């Protein structure tokens, strides 16, 4: 029977059995809720939309007040609207009903429901002073409208910065950080699924029946592919919902690099998952009892955590440093470090090319190595096998 059909049948069983399991449904729902929750919290604490104030003006206001208010509001990044109020009683009523945020009197009084918003107070103070200034200039014989024009911003002001990075630097960092976390979580959790899947087959002793019909390498390939497909679906859901919700909640504009980052994240997920999943599979094949799963996964999980921390410490703060470059070319770290650098727009095209090529080579090598260990260890039972012992035992297994 063809390798493709074998791999397909094994993968299909993995997908079907896992999608039906409560663990998968719960973990997917939980992860999505977690992402949405984090985004909602971020949205709550992030920059609010510009504050908008509604200001009541009591009595006959000076002619320049309206213009002065607009200027002061623009300087403070706020929006101000006004309405006329008849007298102090009307102003107090409007304040109590919260129809207005403040009331201005022509004697220069600012009336508030309560103090506690220094931004508003200083903005109104500036506006009142400016209005008074315009009034005095008018009294001195200048046409109030000319004065008003003179006060309008003249010329075009341009802001330049010494550090580059463009205007979506902040969004880039957010996307990079989110990418690092998500990739690490998805790669290591799905890798561990592979490990427990392999171990289950061994512990339940079904594996001998299966490898009598399907060569061990195909069983490995199908298992890794099936679980990886689930991981991919979960990742795409996460990215899609994460980006969608982020834009919807006004957390970020999609940065220039968002689409590329998303695509590269998926590519690196596949490479990184393949790399780690086969190691997890080989580790799972070395033990025979469920209780040993944690011990078997530990060294690999620790390695992945190390790469994750290194990415946080080296790549995120200094994406273009030599350390970051080297780290992102190192196969065990590349799947986490590279997408972060892409999100930060800190990758030269040749680097990407070399990185992907190196990673593909590493995945190929790891698949060969892990498949041999897996084959050698699969039919052993009893005590935990060493990697070297399993490697040698593969000699005794045909196929």
């Amino acid at each position: 029977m063809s390798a493709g059909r074998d791999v397909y049948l094994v993968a299909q069983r993995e997908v079907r059995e896992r999608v039906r399991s409560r663990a998968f449904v719960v973990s997917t729902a939980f992860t999505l809720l977690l992402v949405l929750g984090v985004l909602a919290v971020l949205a709550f604490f992030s920059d609010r939309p510009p504050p908008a104030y509604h200001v009541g003006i009591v009595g006959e206001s000076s002619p320049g007040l309206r213009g002065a208010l607009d200027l002061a509001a623009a300087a403070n990044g706020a929006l101000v609207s006004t309405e006329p109020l008849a007298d102090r009683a009307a102003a107090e009523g409007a304040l109590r009903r919260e129809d207005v945020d403040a009331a201005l009197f022509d004697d220069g009084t600012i009336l508030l429901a309560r103090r506690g918003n220094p931004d508003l107070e200083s903005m109104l103070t500036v506006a009142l002073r400016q209005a008074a200034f315009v009034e005095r200039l008018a009294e001195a014989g200048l046409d109030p409208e000319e004065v008003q024009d003179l006060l309008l911003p003249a010329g075009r002001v341009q802001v330049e910065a010494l550090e580059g990075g463009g205007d979506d630097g902040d969004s880039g960092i957010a996307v990079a950080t989110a990418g690092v976390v998500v990739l690490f979580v998805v790669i290591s959790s799905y890798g561990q699924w592979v490990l427990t899947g392999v171990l289950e087959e061994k512990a339940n002793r079904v594996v001998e029946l299966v490898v009598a019909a399907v060569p061990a390498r195909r069983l490995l390939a199908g298992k890794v592919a099936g679980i990886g497909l689930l991981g991919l679906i979960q990742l795409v859901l996460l990215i899609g919902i994460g980006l969608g919700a982020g834009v919807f909640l006004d957390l970020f504009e999609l940065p220039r690099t968002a689409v590329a980052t998303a695509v590269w994240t998926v590519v690196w997920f596949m490479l990184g998952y393949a790399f780690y999943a086969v190691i997890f599979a080989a580790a799972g094949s070395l033990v025979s009892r469920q209780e040993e799963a944690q011990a078997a996964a530990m060294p690999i999980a620790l390695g992945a955590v190390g790469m994750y921390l290194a990415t946080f410490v080296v790549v995120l703060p200094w994406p273009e440093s030599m350390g970051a470059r080297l780290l992102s070319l190192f196969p065990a770290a590349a799947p986490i470090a590279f997408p972060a650098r892409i999100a930060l727009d800190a990758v030269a095209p040749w680097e990407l090319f070399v990185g992907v090529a190196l990673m593909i080579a590493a995945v190929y090598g790891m698949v060969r190595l892990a498949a041999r260990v897996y084959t050698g260890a699969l039919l052993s039972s009893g005590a935990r096998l060493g990697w070297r012992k399993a490697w040698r035992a593969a000699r005794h297994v045909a196929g």
Partner: protein
Amino acid sequence: MLELDGLEKSFGEVRALDGASLAARPGRVMGFLGPNGAGKTTAMRAVFGLVALDGGRVCWQGRPLGRADRLRFGYMPEQRGLYPRMRIAEQLAWLGRLHGLGAPEAGRAAASWLERLGLADRKRDRLEQLSHGNQQRVQLAAALVHGPEALVLDEPFAGLDPMAAEALAGIVREQAAAGVTVVFSSHQLDLVQDVCEDVAIIDRGRVVLSGSLEEVRRRAPHRRVDLALEGEAEWSPGLPGVERLTRRNGLTTYLVPAEADPAALLADAARAGRVTRFSFQPPTLSDLFREAVER
């Protein structure tokens, strides 16, 4: 015909197979016997390509056995096991598909075996929800679901109660009657004697005795004489090459050379006392086994 031809395999210092050869014929049931560690499981695993042989080969219909042939074999490994959380009908159908059946065909085959084994109403249950005995039945169905041309069963009777063993024996005989080549290993020699037509006895990696059960019993250099004398009188046959095996409940068992004359033996015994029981038969499988693997 399934032939093992001079199989050799060492695991380090241990010589698991040392030129083991046998031939199992279609339509017949072969019992594959041997003490623990004699190489039974290694030989059976070699049939399924699970062991890389150092020498020899496995042939099917006269040609070296290939992967495509193996898919038409049914296997029950010594280490039983299926997916505990998978529904049994789906599990059997999946195994059928792994062996090359199309999806609808596999579904039908799974349903019909579950029906046959009395598990039709449990088909949506997970394996772990079944009793031990029912799990054993599913395990048997797993070896049969794809309608194999040859069945290789490693200790299929181990752990079965007498009813289940009888049911299994029935299915095994029926498969052979339908033309399937059946090989099974066992420790339970009396059971083997009831179920199989051919035997092969393996010891220290070599097949030391094989052939049809009738033939190997007839060919044996000994006959078994059971004798009881009234009053438990003593008698020993005046022949060279006689071995007294056991004396139990007044019945004494001797092995005598095959060419001995039963009538003369009986007459000789009658001189020692009144004979209450006398039999002269080819050796049992147990006798042959003991002799073949004697150390």
